[in-house]
């Protein structure tokens, strides 16, 4: 089963993050270890960190392009991962580890097949 993990973070925190802090470096190390672990287990199909939502453009029918993300909220999409794993329990367990280690809120969505 394939799942999309969407990690949301607070825009205020994104804009004030101290990239030299121990907390930030620990998050980076956590992600590096997790990516290695999930690559080794053959479960990770892909993952990327995203640019700042200020760089987003949203396109609507009729070539209406507006600057900024689809929804203006305090919580913004920061990264995503696609997993192919045994089932929902496993996907939720990985999401829980991300949420606990990084503080992001992680949405887990099944990916359609067939």
């Amino acid at each position, binding site marked *: *089963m394939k799942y999309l993990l969407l990690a949301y973070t607070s825009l205020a925190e994104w804009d004030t993050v101290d990239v030299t802090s121990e907390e930030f470096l620990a998050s980076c190390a956590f992600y590096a270890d997790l990516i290695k672990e999930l*690559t*080794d*287990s*053959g*479960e*990770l*199909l*892909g993952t990327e960190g995203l640019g700042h939502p200020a760089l987003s453009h949203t396109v609507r029918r009729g070539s209406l392009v507006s600057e900024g993300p689809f929804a203006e909220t305090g919580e913004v999409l920061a990264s995503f991962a696609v997993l*192919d794993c*045994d089932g*929902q329990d496993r996907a939720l367990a990985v999401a829980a580890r991300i949420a606990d280690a990084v503080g992001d809120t992680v949405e887990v969505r*099944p*990916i*359609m*097949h*067939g």
Partner: protein
Amino acid sequence: MADPPVTAEHLRDLVPQVLGALVRRYGHFDTCEDAVQEALLAAATQWPAQGVPEEPRTWLIRVASRRLVDLLRSEQARTRREAAWQPPVPPAVSGWSRDQDDSLTLLFLCCHPALSAPAQLALTLRAVGGLSTAEIGRALLTPEPTVAQRISRAKAKVREAGATFRLPAPEEFDERLDVVLAVLYLIFTEGYVGTTGDTLDRVELSAEAIRLTRLLHARLPGRGDVGGLLALMLLTHARRDARTGPGGALVPLDEQDRTRWDRAAIAEGVTLVTAALRAGPPGFYQLQAAIAAVHAEAPRARDTDWPQILALYRLLGAVTDSPVVTLNRAVAEAMVHGPAAGLAVLDTVAGDPRLARSHRPAAVRAHLLAMSGAHVEAARWFRAAARLTTNRSEQRFLLSRAVDPAATPR
């Protein structure tokens, strides 16, 4: 005795024999497996140009052995630099036993209980099926590096588990065979996932599962469960051309054009399941195959012998506690005794936690409500079921029923 002539399609039949011969002689299952893949690659590039060798199996064993010795030497050179030195394995290319067939042992090794299901599946497709990592990736709709990682990790796990190259002991044979059957059935059902879109250049997993199950059945002809599984696959696969309509839309069993069913596959499946049912007390696969056979033997949907199917589902319920079997029995009950009887059976499993995330209880309820003429309620349940499935064609089917619940035949 000379090997029979080999075409490109039959090349993969030799893979488990070649790999088995190597592992029996040298051990090092993981390295042997790499060496056989390289020999296959060599065959694929050399044979079309130079012709198929007279004894393809011997040719493959010879080339794979040479490659294996190279691989082991370079591994040992690295180990020597790091730790204790071991003498390289001497190359040996003569004296292979021609009658020794290790395909079965190999299948058990690939379906080792220490491995996860996806790992068992990928390793079996490669080491027994002879598929390349790229082919497996395309078949499973999984990126090639992911498959490669799964296979190399699976091989490492088999090594760590200290698995030896021999058949399981008699006291654990049945349990280990159950795992092998489950892996083969999983390969078969994977073949029905992701069949939309461009299927060109993709190995057909269902056909591959049938090929591997034939291999197993040829070696264990007296086992009712193996014969039952092969029958189940053949009887299910016989309907493949009729089960999708234009644009990949799902066509349910009772609406399929039965002239498009594969009669030869059905005849073979019926013969196999008949023999399997005589082999001993029927288990999961024999009973599922028997149900598929009853469907296959009905010239029209309305000719289906539902009382027979209901009896088989009751037997099936006695050998497994799967709530999915109860859902299917609910439909059979409705066909024999009316929708109210079916809904009563459905109510006994609707709250089963194993079905909490499944769309099936809602789909069955919708179907039974439509049968009873409660179309508004049925439409609501068809929509509820459609929300819960992650299969695109199934979702489209359920949504089309939500628009027109009366389309459900009564």
